[in-house]
C-alpha cells in the first residue's frame, strides 16, 4: 500500500543517467519513464471522456448536475473504503457510481415530490452528500490506518498518486464513454435538441436518459482520483463551453471538447510532475479555463473580438453613409452636387464631431466617393452621388412605409428611417418599392430618388 505515495517526482531516479542531467521541465518530454507516460495518458483520456459527455449536459442546460453528482460521489468512495479497506480502482469506481446514482435519484425525487425546483434540489444534494463525505473522511483519517493515506486526494485530485492500475481503469472507462457516444450519437443528438419530438417518433427517451446519466456518472467517477470531487464539474462544463465558441456542428463540438479536455489533462499531469505536492485538479481547471478565455476573446463570430469588430465596422459604415448623405442633402435643393462644402457647412446640416468628420472625409476620398479639389472644400464624386442617392431613397421609402402602412404621423418617422436606411438590402428595397406602388414623394414632399442600377458596393453586402 505504500506504493501509492510514490509520486512521479520520485520516479525520476529510475531514469537513465543521460536524461537525469536534464532539468525536470525538459526531461518530462523524453517520455522515458513508463510511469510518466501512464499518468499522462490517464489524465488525457479522462479529460477527453469527460469533455465529451459534458457537451450533452451543457447543451441540455443542465451543467450543474455534474457538479452535484461529483460531490455526491465522496460518501460513496469513503463508504466502500470503510467496508473493504482497499483502494482498488474498480471498487472505488463502483462505490462512487452507486453514490452518484443515489444522488441523481435524490435530485429527481426532490423535484418530483416537493415544491422545490431543480436548482434548489441540486444545491441541497451537493452540499448534504459532500458534508456526509467529509464526515466519513474525517472519521477514516482519525482511525490512523496506514491504508487510508491518500484518500483525501479525492478532494482535489492527485494525478501523481495514481498507479498503473488506476490509469488502466480510467483509460478503459474513457474509451467506453467515447464508444458509447459514437454509437448512440444520433439518439443523444435528437434527445438533446428536441426530446419531445424524439418521444413522438417512438425513441425510447426514458431509456436514453438513463443511458446518458450512466455515462455522466462514469465520467465523474473516473475523474475523482485525478481531479477530485470539488473541481470535477469544471472538466465537464468548460471544454463544452469552449468548444461551442468554435463551431456550429455538434460532431465537431464533441471532437473539440474532447481535445480541450485532453489538453488540460496533459497540462495537469505535467504540473503534477514538476511539483509533486501540487494537486492536479486545480491545474487542469486553470488550463482548460485559459483555453476558454482565449476562445471567448478570439473565436470567430462568437468571440468578443469578432463581435467588437462587427459592431465597429457597422458604426463606421453608418458614419460614412451619414456624411455622404449630408453632402447629398446640401446639394439637393438646387439639384447641383458640383458645389463645394466646407466642414463647417456640413456641421450646420448635421451634428458631427469635427475631428471624426475630417477623418471620415479623408477615408471617403480614398474610397473615391468624395473629392477635395480645394483644401477644406468637399463634394461628392459620381459614385458618391449614386450611393448617397440610394441611401436617401431607402430613407424616404421607409418613411413612406411607416406613414402609410403603420399610419404613424409623418413627424415621428425620421429617426427610425435614420437607422433603417443603413440596413435595407437590395431585395428588401425592391419589395418595399413594390408594396408602396413606386412612390415619387415622401411624407415631407421630398422626391424619392430613382433606384440605383449599379451593383452594391462591397461594403453594403452583409456585414
Amino acid at each position: 500500500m505504500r506504493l501509492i505515495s510514490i509520486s512521479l517526482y520520485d520516479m525520476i531516479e529510475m531514469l537513465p543517467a543521460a536524461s537525469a542531467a536534464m532539468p525536470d521541465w525538459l526531461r518530462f518530454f523524453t517520455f522515458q519513464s513508463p510511469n510518466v507516460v501512464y499518468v499522462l495518458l490517464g489524465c488525457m483520456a479522462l479529460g477527453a471522456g469527460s469533455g465529451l459527455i459534458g457537451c450533452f449536459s451543457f447543451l441540455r442546460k443542465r451543467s450543474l448536475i455534474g457538479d452535484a453528482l461529483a460531490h455526491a460521489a465522496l460518501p460513496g468512495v469513503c463508504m466502500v473504503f470503510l467496508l473493504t479497506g482497499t483502494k482498488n480502482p474498480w471498487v472505488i469506481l463502483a462505490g462512487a457510481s452507486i453514490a452518484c446514482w443515489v444522488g441523481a435519484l435524490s435530485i429527481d425525487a426532490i423535484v418530483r415530490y416537493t415544491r422545490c425546483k431543480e436548482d434548489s434540489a441540486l444545491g441541497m444534494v451537493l452540499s448534504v452528500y459532500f458534508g456526509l463525505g467529509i464526515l466519513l473522511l474525517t472519521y477514516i483519517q482519525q482511525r490512523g490506518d496506514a491504508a487510508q493515506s491518500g484518500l483525501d486526494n479525492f478532494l482535489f485530485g492527485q494525478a501523481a498518486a495514481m498507479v498503473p492500475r488506476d490509469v488502466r481503469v480510467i483509460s478503459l472507462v474513457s474509451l467506453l464513454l467515447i464508444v458509447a457516444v459514437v454509437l448512440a450519437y444520433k439518439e443523444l443528438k435528437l434527445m438533446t435538441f428536441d426530446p419531445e419530438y424524439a418521444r413522438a417518433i417512438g425513441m425510447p427517451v426514458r431509456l436514453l436518459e438513463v443511458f446518458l446519466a450512466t455515462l455522466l456518472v462514469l465520467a465523474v467517477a473516473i475523474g475523482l482520483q485525478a481531479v477530485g470531487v470539488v473541481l470535477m464539474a469544471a472538466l465537464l462544463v468548460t471544454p463544452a463551453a469552449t468548444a461551442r465558441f468554435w463551431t456550429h456542428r455538434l460532431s465537431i463540438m464533441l471532437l473539440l471538447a474532447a481535445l480541450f479536455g485532453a489538453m488540460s489533462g496533459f497540462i495537469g499531469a505535467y504540473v503534477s510532475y514538476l511539483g509533486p505536492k501540487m494537486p492536479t485538479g486545480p491545474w487542469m481547471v486553470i488550463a482548460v479555463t485559459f483555453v476558454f478565455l482565449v476562445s471567448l476573446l478570439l473565436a470567430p463570430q462568437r468571440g468578443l473580438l469578432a463581435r467588437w469588430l462587427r459592431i465597429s465596422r457597422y458604426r463606421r459604415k453608418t458614419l460614412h453613409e451619414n456624411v455622404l448623405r449630408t453632402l447629398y442633402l446640401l446639394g439637393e435643393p438646387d439639384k447641383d452636387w458640383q458645389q463645394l462644402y466646407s466642414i463647417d457647412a456640413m456641421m450646420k446640416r448635421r451634428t458631427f464631431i469635427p475631428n471624426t468628420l475630417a477623418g471620415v472625409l479623408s477615408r471617403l476620398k480614398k474610397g473615391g466617393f468624395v473629392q477635395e479639389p480645394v483644401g477644406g472644400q468637399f463634394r461628392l464624386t459620381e459614385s458618391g452621388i449614386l450611393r448617397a442617392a440610394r441611401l436617401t431613397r431607402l430613407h424616404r421609402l421607409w418613411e413612406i412605409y411607416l406613414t402609410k402602412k403603420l399610419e404613424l404621423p409623418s413627424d415621428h418617422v425620421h429617426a427610425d428611417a435614420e437607422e433603417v436606411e443603413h440596413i435595407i438590402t437590395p431585395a428588401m428595397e425592391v419589395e418595399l418599392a413594390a408594396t408602396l406602388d413606386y412612390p415619387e414623394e415622401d411624407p415631407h414632399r421630398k422626391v424619392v430618388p430613382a433606384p440605383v442600377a449599379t451593383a452594391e458596393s462591397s461594403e453594403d453586402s452583409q456585414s
Partner: protein
Amino acid sequence: MNTFVDTIPPIEVHDLTVAYHHLPVLWDIDVTFPQGKLIAIVGPNGAGKSTLLKAVMGLIPLASGYVRFYGKSSTKGAYNVAYVPQRGSVDWDFPTTAYDVVLMGRYGQLSLFGRPRRRDREIALDALNKVGMESYANRQISQLSGGQQQRVFLARALAQQTSVYLMDEPFAGVDAATERAIVTLLQDLRERGATVVAVHHDLQTVPEYFDDVLLLNLRAVAYGPVSEVFTSENLQKTYGGRLPMLTEVAEKLRRKEWSRRDETD
C-alpha cells in the same frame, strides 16, 4: 354501409380526458378525423389545443380514454405519425444545420444506433426542397428566420413520409411567403390522401385553408366540415364566456388533490 371497411379512420379519439396535477384540462373528447382532410383545431387561449395534440401523440398521460390510428392502439411509435411541435419548444442555438434537423425526421424509421443511409439523406434533401429551403441546407439553424425555422420543422415532418400529420400552430409568427408555402404544402399532402390536423389561431383563414374544424374549449364544442360547423353560434359557444361551474369544480379537484382516475404520474 358497404364502405365501412375502407373507412377505418386515420385518427380516432375516444372519451379522452387529460389532467395536469389532478386538474382536468380536457374533458371527454370524442372525435374521429377522416382520411384526406385538412383539419383545424380552433379555440381560445388555454382551451387545451396543444394539450390535445400532445395527448393524441402519446406525449402526456391520459386520465381516461384512448387514441387509435387506423384502428390500432396508439402505443408510442407503433404508427408513424408526423409531428410538428411549436417552434418555440426547442433551443435554436443548438449546434446543427437545417439539413441535420430534417434528417431527424428519418430517425423513427432507423434502428437503435443505426445510421441514416443514402436513401434517408435523399428523402431529407427532397423534404427541404419541398419547403423551398434547399439553399439553406447547411445553414446553422440559429441563423434562419422564424419562418425558415418553421419550414425546417415542416420538412422534418415530411421526411417521416407518412399519412398522418399533427401540427402545433404551423402558421404562428411566419412571414407571408412561408404562409403561402405551408398552404401549398398542406394541399399537396391532402391530394396524396394524407390527414393533417393543425392547431390554428387565425379564425379568418380557417374557411380558406381547412376542410374541417374542431372547435375546442376544454371540451369538444363542435366538429365537422367548416361550412357546417364554423358558425357564429358555435364560435360564440367556444369563445364566449368562461364555464364557471367547470372551472369551479376543477379548482375543487385540485385543492383536494383528488384524482379523477388512476394516474401514473
